[in-house]
């Protein structure tokens, strides 16, 4: 008995282990959004005129965009004038080597388990770390350079590779796409930029780590990944934030472009602060992620493990433009306490013989609400397009909810669209069975949940799959009586 009580105690303390604040001098823009704010950000980043103009277009689109109202939760009122749109560590904004980075900052990333010092890297993962609004370090730059891979903060890419950024920025998610994407276009602070040249297989996993630290700031990063013909890249993002009583907005945009025969694998392990058990605080994670398979036989695969945020609201999508291109979406979304997730994907079949596969695994515990919302659209030219969707819900306890909203629109008779859905509960029988083999209830739930989510976790790069498994177990600690 004592044994299992100890485990419980240990985990209840472990609620959200990344909730600390780093004490570092920050330069924070005055609150509120206006044309002046945009000029301020643009000037801080020493941006060219075209980018400033693009931001302003985004700003005006944002003003005109109505608030969405179709989501399956009550949209909290966000006071956009009460947010600061730029926060950066005060010391030198640009770093040439890690030695120049504020030690406090390095300590923070070490606490988060992000290995910034290259010699410590075992896994061979190149990391770009974004702290509030600026990118603080990108590791392995030189090795990547040898292969012609560009992996840098987007602010740097704007200066050093303007032709690429200008060509592709906003080409998948336009500045006026939706309210939050428009807000991002206007105010995006930093983010990662990746370019993989023709025929290059990126020699290592690329990874970006996002951290919101400063109070009353929003995070609006923008990621742009371009895989040129016949290239391959696997990219992973991770995120955490301190515990705060007020909600913080995270409105990111990710654009992926895969040219002919290219493949992009994009994985997310999202662990933003989810708020406390009564629903106070937490991150609003309102993100627009979209990729386009521009050439024939291109492939884009989204994998997400969503355990954090008060509200997660996003639909990583793929536009299957090139013939025989394929899109995949693998998702595990966990909601507990008062967390809400309204997530899924959109697959737009435009080219011939395009394929898509959607595997969504929702897990609801406590009073969490979990919705899968997905659109499979087959255009008139998409002969022999195929889609397979499987969307499963797992319920833990009797106060949570699981909802499924699949939309299928097909304009082509030769298309095959399959949809399977299941809802299950973790049964007392299953838990008792595991208990009877000496496994306590907490571990039993972790085992069952990881088994349930296995198909998705298997998609993650090895070292992150282990992390994600742990994260799933920890985020469900205490959710079974």
């Amino acid at each position, binding site marked *: 008995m004592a044994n299992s009580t100890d485990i419980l105690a240990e985990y209840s303390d472990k609620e959200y282990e990344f909730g600390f604040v780093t004490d570092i001098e920050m330069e924070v823009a005055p609150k509120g959004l206006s044309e002046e704010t945009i000029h301020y950000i643009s000037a801080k980043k020493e941006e060219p005129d075209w980018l400033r103009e693009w931001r302003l277009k985004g700003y005006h689109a944002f003003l005109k965009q109505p608030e969405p109202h179709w989501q399956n939760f009550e949209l909290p009122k966000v006071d956009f004038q009460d947010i600061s749109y730029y926060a950066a560590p005060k010391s030198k904004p640009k770093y040439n080597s890690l030695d120049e980075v504020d030690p406090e900052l390095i300590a923070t990333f070490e606490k988060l388990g992000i290995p910034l010092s290259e010699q410590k890297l075992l896994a061979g993962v190149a990391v770009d770390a974004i702290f509030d609004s600026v990118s603080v370090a990108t590791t392995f730059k030189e090795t990547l350079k040898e292969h012609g891979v560009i992996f840098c903060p987007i602010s740097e890419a704007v200066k050093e590779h303007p032709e690429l950024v200008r060509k592709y920025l906003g080409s998948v998610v336009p500045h006026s796409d939706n309210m939050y994407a428009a807000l991002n276009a206007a105010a995006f602070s930093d983010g990662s930029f990746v370019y993989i040249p023709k025929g290059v297989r990126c020699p290592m996993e690329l990874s970006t780590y996002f951290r919101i630290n400063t109070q009353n700031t929003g995070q609006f990063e923008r990621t742009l990944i371009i895989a040129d013909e016949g290239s391959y890249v696997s990219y992973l993002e991770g995120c955490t934030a301190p515990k705060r009583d007020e909600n913080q907005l995270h409105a990111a945009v990710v654009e992926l472009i895969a040219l002919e025969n290219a493949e992009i694998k994009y994985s997310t392990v999202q662990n933003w602060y989810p708020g406390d058990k009564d629903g106070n605080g937490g991150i609003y994670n309102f993100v627009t992620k979209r990729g386009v398979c521009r050439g024939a036989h291109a492939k884009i695969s989204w994998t997400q493990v969503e355990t954090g945020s008060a509200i997660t609201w996003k639909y990583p999508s793929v536009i299957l433009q090139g013939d025989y291109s394929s899109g995949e979406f693998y998702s595990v979304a966990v909601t507990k306490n008062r967390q809400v997730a309204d997530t899924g994907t959109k697959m737009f079949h435009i080219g011939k013989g395009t394929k898509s596969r959607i595997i969504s695994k929702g897990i609801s515990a406590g009073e969490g609400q979990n919705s899968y919302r997905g659109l499979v659209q087959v255009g008139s030219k998409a002969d022999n397009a195929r889609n397979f969707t499987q969307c499963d819900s797992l319920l833990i306890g009797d106060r949570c909810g699981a909802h499924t909203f699949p939309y299928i629109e097909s304009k082509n008779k030769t298309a095959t669209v399959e949809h399977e859905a299941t809802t299950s509960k973790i049964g007392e*029988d299953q838990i008792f069975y595991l*208990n*009877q083999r000496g*496994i306590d209830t907490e571990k039993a739930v972790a085992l*069952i949940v990881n088994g349930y989510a296995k198909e998705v976790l298997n998609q993650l790069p090895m070292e992150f799959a282990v992390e994600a498994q742990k994260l799933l177990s920890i985020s469900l600690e205490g959710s079974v009586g």
Partner: protein
Amino acid sequence: MLQIKDLQAKVEDKQILKGINLQVNPGEVHAIMGPNGSGKSSLASVLAGREYFDVNGGEVLFDGKNLLELSPEDRAREGIFLAFQYPVEIPGVSNINFLRTALNEIRAYRNEPALEAKEFLKMTREKQKLVEFEAKLTNRSLNEGFSGGEKKRNEVFQLAMLEPKLAILDETDSGLDIDALRIVSNGVNKLRSDKNAFIVITHYQRLLEYIVPDFVHVLYDGRIVKSGTKELALELEERGYDWIKEPVSTETVN
């Protein structure tokens, strides 16, 4: 090893166990027989710690410890194993991963170090062979899509891996064809030693031809109404259960 004294348990308002007395010593095999609804499986569940049952009288000592105070997982770690009548399916969790977790939890409770992967695999291979369990089933998801017989054989395989002091087989013979019955029984017989004990719950004498018990008890209406040796099982086979339904004084063998 196990002492059950006047054990009573109910579900809601229904009294299921009405005063069970039983002593099991190391090296012994006890068979518990009885008609449907007499409380056989309930006794197994109560001993394993299923919360569904409300224990409202009596005591159970296991190696001198008050068993009823322990959580189900601690009972398992102390060395009680229940081979389920209806083993559950757990999709996505491989049999082998499940077993390694279980084994290491039990070892941790006993302050033993976790088994190295190599040792664990060696042990798995040996035990598979011992109880004639197919290797391909070891890597499949726990009981998912297993036939009735495969599930029961998996219970015996787990029994072999976890090496409990006391194993309770709850109608392990139900739903088995004659070949599977033989494999399961052979497995159990190979695992018998003078250090462990078995409680075998069954409807039929048939199983007891393979797993020969030292004692046979007849459970009826929540009480052990008759105890004897293996000949009692034969008598039951011949005469059915009706004759024991007459009021009989509760006698225990030990």
